[in-house]
């Protein structure tokens, strides 16, 4: 078990290393020179351009640039933002927190609800609730998440019921201070991540309910509640954990559009800004962070999956 976890951890790190290579290569290939991007119209002054280039280490060989960047990353020093001149980690710190808060709140709300809906649909298989929920998940999965967000804004904020703030208008350091401003983004993200979880939970629950050990539990005369909660649910959750991880991983990237839509000061918005400004260190850091979240979430899902499976947990030590 421990060895398996270490093995996964190793692959996670390897993955991050490759991601870092790709990200670095990709950002190097961005057209137009960051120095120029910073100066904009003023880049017409060659002296200023050259000075800035030197200041940014852009005149060094690529391998050296990569190495100095990577060795910084290892100690969570992502370099200095090309614009504003502050350390990237300082710049992104509150944003990472804000995004993680958003993701966690979403996960904490969406995952249990989605699983409950899926499980209930499985228990009500082929009845009204099942049909309604599967149709609804299909429709929601079919609409791009930002469209869901736009609809949410229209319905709950600017158009129909004027219940909630339409956009986030606060600071990244105190995200939880304005809970009402979080409602719409969280709702949108929750709707975006839920359909696959609901589907998977339903499918996996149906499979488990059809299994012989659940039938045997029923034949043992156990009350239905015990059958479902003790015998069926724990076995159904294993495969769902993977999907939840996948969805949370998606969330790490998917927040981009939602943060953009809701003006939420998270890493997604930081990424869009950075791409626009050709702010390489920030792009690199964000891409790497998102990948890291993904790797981490998957690692956790793997561990949960392993832990939930006594076959692995007990036998392979």
């Amino acid at each position: 078990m421990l060895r398996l976890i270490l093995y996964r951890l190793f692959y996670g790190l390897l993955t991050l290393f490759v991601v870092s290579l790709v990200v670095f290569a990709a950002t190097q290939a961005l057209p137009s020179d960051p120095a120029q991007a910073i100066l904009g119209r003023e880049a017409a002054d060659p002296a200023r351009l050259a000075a800035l280039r030197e200041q940014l280490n852009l005149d060094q060989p690529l391998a050296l640039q990569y190495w100095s960047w990577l060795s910084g990353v290892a100690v969570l020093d992502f370099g200095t933002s090309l614009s504003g001149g502050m350390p990237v980690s300082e710049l992104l710190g509150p944003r990472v927190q804000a995004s993680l808060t958003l993701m966690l709140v979403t996960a904490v709300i969406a995952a249990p609800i989605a699983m409950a809906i899926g499980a209930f649909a499985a228990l009500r298989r082929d009845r009204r609730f099942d049909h309604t929920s599967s149709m609804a998940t299909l429709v929601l999965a079919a609409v791009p998440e930002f469209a869901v967000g736009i609809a949410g804004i229209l319905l709950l904020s600017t158009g129909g019921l004027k219940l909630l703030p339409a956009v986030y208008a606060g600071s990244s350091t105190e995200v939880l201070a304005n809970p009402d401003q979080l409602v719409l983004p969280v709702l949108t993200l929750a709707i975006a991540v839920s359909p696959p979880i609901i589907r998977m939970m339903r499918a996996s629950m149906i499979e488990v309910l059809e299994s012989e050990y659940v039938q045997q539990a029923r034949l043992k005369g156990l009350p239905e509640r015990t059958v479902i909660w003790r015998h069926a649910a724990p076995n159904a959750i294993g495969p769902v954990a993977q999907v939840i991880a996948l969805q949370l991983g998606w969330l790490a990237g998917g927040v981009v559009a939602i943060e953009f839509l809701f003006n939420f000061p998270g890493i997604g918005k930081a990424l869009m800004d950075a791409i626009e400004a050709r702010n390489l260190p920030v792009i690199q850091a964000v891409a790497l962070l998102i990948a890291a979240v993904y790797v981490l979430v998957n690692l956790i899902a793997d561990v949960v999956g392993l832990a939930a499976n006594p076959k692995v947990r007990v036998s392979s030590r």
Partner: protein
Amino acid sequence: MSTADTASGAAPAAPVRRPGLLRTAWRFHRTKIGVVLAGAVLLVAAAGPFLSPFSPTEGAGMPNSASAAGTLFGTDEVGRDVFSRFLHGGYTLVTIAVASALAGVAAGAVFGIVAGYLRNWADELIMRTNDMLLAFPQLVLALLLLSILGPKVWLIVAIIALSHANRVARVTREATLKVVEQDFVKSAEAIGVPRWRIMAAEILPNITSPLLVELGLRITYSVGTIATLSFLGMGLQPPQADWGLMINEGRTAITIQPWAVVLPVTAVAVLTIGANLITDGLSRASIGIDRGVEK
């Protein structure tokens, strides 16, 4: 086979001629509904450009009026006819979505089957690469590449197909592993049937069901990703008429001119729902072949 055969065979229960996959699928209501929905959207996308009253870029009236004279659904934020843009804008999105989904599923299926069947270094290589690609945030990758190479159609297709391929490869490999364990594959190996033929003729037909489900899902995700890219300004570029772009351009004025958003969103949703219903029906039908409770 010939009727003579059936007649001569003394078997008491002559086998009912099994309807093909398509016909079996057609028996499900959902398939029919799916075909109608998806078909309608495809029709709009394909025939739309020939039916549109205006060119997609010409001005047809004052901007953002939901009921400009001479237009069916009013004008957009620069006074172009919303309906004409809607009719013109499906073609690109549908083509890109379907092309990238097909390419992704095809590539993923190939990789998945090869990895699942050969189970040697190729498997390791493919799956490890896959894991890494999987860990690479899809949207971030798309944004990066698009900002490097510029928003080109082939690039959008390639990126989306790639991100599909590794997910499909995973699913395919899982499905393949189940099939590979079965003895009919070994049986072909025992008589030396070439590996590629085994993959094509023995394995592929047995994993069509999960592949079809994937295809439906992939079309959904393609549409979503394309629309999101357009939304973030990295997809198709204005003034092109495109559903994803229309949603983005129209959303600012949605309260006074909802059609510019409602039409493309509906079309996109209907298309993906239709596609999912069809593939769902197909996959149910192809699972049915395995079950065969017919007495």
